């Protein structure tokens, strides 16, 4: 479960995030929409304790991320917009290393291969150097890491940007499967369509504030688009 209570982040005079109150239950897929600079990535960075909040708290499964940074990181898996792996290692070697760090122990090779298969990566590709992978392939490796972690929460930063429609669809299915397993998911995105169809709840951020917070079923595609553009109209 992911929870933000009065979460605020200021950089000098600039308020990047203003009193965010959010609660994402297990099984929820919360899609955070907003323009560039609205505060979406800041929110994710706060949950990951990459930055410290100016006010308020971020909780993962009831634990404050600033108080128990390592413990909370065990509970959450993060997938950034741009996944960059170690280019001189192969996909499998990257998976082995990161999953070992995540779990504190090394996974056996067949389990790793199984994970690769689960995310749809050809085993022939697994032993090739990551320097030659496409963006989608790198993301799949990282999803494999996330799966290996078996975390109870997922943080995703614009995961479908740059993916072709087929890959994007595959990804949405993955999210749905995870949420069915009781994982709490927070994803930031520009993609209104996927937000409405994959997400269970939608939030719209504008200049650091959460201006809309609603169930995705309670609104139609057109209504969502109109609402979104209305908020973006006044954006700086």
């Amino acid at each position, binding site marked *: 479960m992911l929870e933000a209570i009065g979460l605020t982040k200021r950089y000098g005079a600039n308020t990047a995030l203003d009193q965010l109150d959010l609660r994402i239950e297990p099984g929820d897929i919360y899609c955070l929409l907003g323009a560039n600079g609205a505060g979406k990535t800041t929110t994710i960075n706060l949950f990951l304790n990459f930055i410290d909040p100016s006010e308020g708290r971020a909780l993962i499964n009831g634990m404050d991320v600033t108080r128990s940074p390592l413990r909370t990181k065990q509970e959450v*898996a993060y997938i950034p917009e741009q996944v960059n792996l170690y280019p*001189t*290692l192969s996909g499998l070697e990257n998976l082995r290393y990161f999953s070992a*760090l*995540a779990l504190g122990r*090394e996974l056996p090779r067949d389990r790793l291969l199984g994970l690769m298969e689960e995310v749809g990566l050809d085993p022939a590709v697994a032993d090739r150097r990551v320097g030659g992978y496409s963006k989608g392939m790198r993301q799949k490796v990282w999803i494999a890491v996330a799966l290996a972690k078996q975390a109870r929460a997922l943080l995703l930063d614009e995961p479908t940007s740059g993916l072709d429609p087929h890959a994007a669809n595959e990804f949405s299915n993955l999210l749905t499967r995870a949420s069915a397993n009781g994982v709490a998911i927070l994803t930031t995105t520009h993609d209104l369509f996927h937000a409405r169809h994959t997400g269970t709840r939608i939030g719209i951020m504008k200049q650091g504030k959460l201006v809309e917070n609603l169930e995705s079923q309670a609104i139609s595609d057109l209504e969502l688009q109109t609402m979104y553009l209305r908020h973006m109209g006044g954006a700086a």
Partner: protein
Amino acid sequence: MNKLLQFRRLRMVMAEELRLLAADRSFWVVSLIFLLLIAYALSNGLHQATLRAGAQSAIVHDDAQRRAGQLDKLQRIMAGKEVPGPFDNPADPTHMGGGYGAHHAILPPAPLAAVALGQDDLFPSQYKVTYESRISFIGNNDIENPWNLLSGHFDLSFVLVYLLPFLIFALGYNLLSAERESGTLRLLMSQPLALWTLLLGKIATRAAVLLSLAVLVPVATLMLARPAALSGGGTLVYWAATVAVYALFWFALVLAVNACGKSSATNAMVLIIAWVTLVLVLPSLLNLAVGAAVPSPSRAELATRTRVLTAEAMARNNKLLSTDYAHVGKPGVLVPKDGSIQMAGRLRGMFLIEREIDQKIAPELARFDLQQERRQALVARYSFLSPAAVAAEAMSALAGTGQRRHAWFMRQVGDYHAAWKQFFFSRIDAGRAVTVADFSRIPQFDWQEEEGSTVGRDATWALVQLFAPCLLLLGFALWRLRRYRVV
């Protein structure tokens, strides 16, 4: 639970870093270059050390041969089989005590001499000691092209003090910044991995590789090429520790610079500037400052004063100097009779002049020595500002080519000089000839090696001076890491 998991993760990071380094071509290039530099420096050091040892033993051999020849000649003279010359008479104490009979006081090389060749002009290792004043034999050192003295030696100490930091920079300047710039840092930090663990693992791997090259290769080579080096006992261990702590300082600096969170390019620039400042500029600035604070008395003045004293002494002994040599036409004069020998008036006069100069110039020389001591003390007090200066002096000290061992040598030379003078002055004043039995009583220079405890104490102090800034930098790094921006 946390501690244990972090320790396991630390091992993982180290293992992976090793793998990443091995896959990185620049790492192999850097290691190979380092290995070549060490190999060349060691071979050069061994070669030069061998040459020097050879030159010294040639001197010892030469001295012994001359003495044996002189003894032989004296026996023949006493047996009446040979007539002595006026200026090379082994029975005449004014000759035997002067350049004719003088031997060299020799500072033998220490077991680790190949490691830091030192500068022979700064600290010469042989003096031909006569009854003349110290001035006359102190300046007369080995022949070396001053251009080469200016350039310095390519020895292991040079490679470790000057070049090792660069290799540490090459491997570590972008420790964290590269991960951040390539985006892998946030992937790592989204796992239950402490930033400190990651950094420690990275540094430990690199330190292990570089230190095994910097310490193990020379130790192994020395063991094979110069097994005597092991007899040094603790010195080899101290040397290894000095290299390790010096390297640790630079690793700590790399850590501190990385912890500030700037870009790779900025890190590199900061480190280069630090190297230029700590290794190139500060030591020479310190040198200048010490020279300005405690200036050396004027050598030109000393030369003038010596000349004035010489003139006065010559004037006082003019009568003796005007005596003509009596041996021309009467060679028998030069042979000792009943243990006494008639010393030519001029020679006696010149001897008296020398003795007078020696006594009168002694306070001037003492002034030089005092200033030199004070200068050296200042250097010892303030060299902590430059770890390179501390490490260079420490390595020289352990190799036996440092200032302290040389000062100890000079003290022993002074004692030997005094004993030599005493032996010959008593004979000259009494007009007693040098007998065959006397030959075995002529003072010998017996080198007493430094106490192991002195060496150990200084080495430990150097280690402390190197370690303290390490701790400061580590503390600083820890403090800055708290604020490190992962994204």
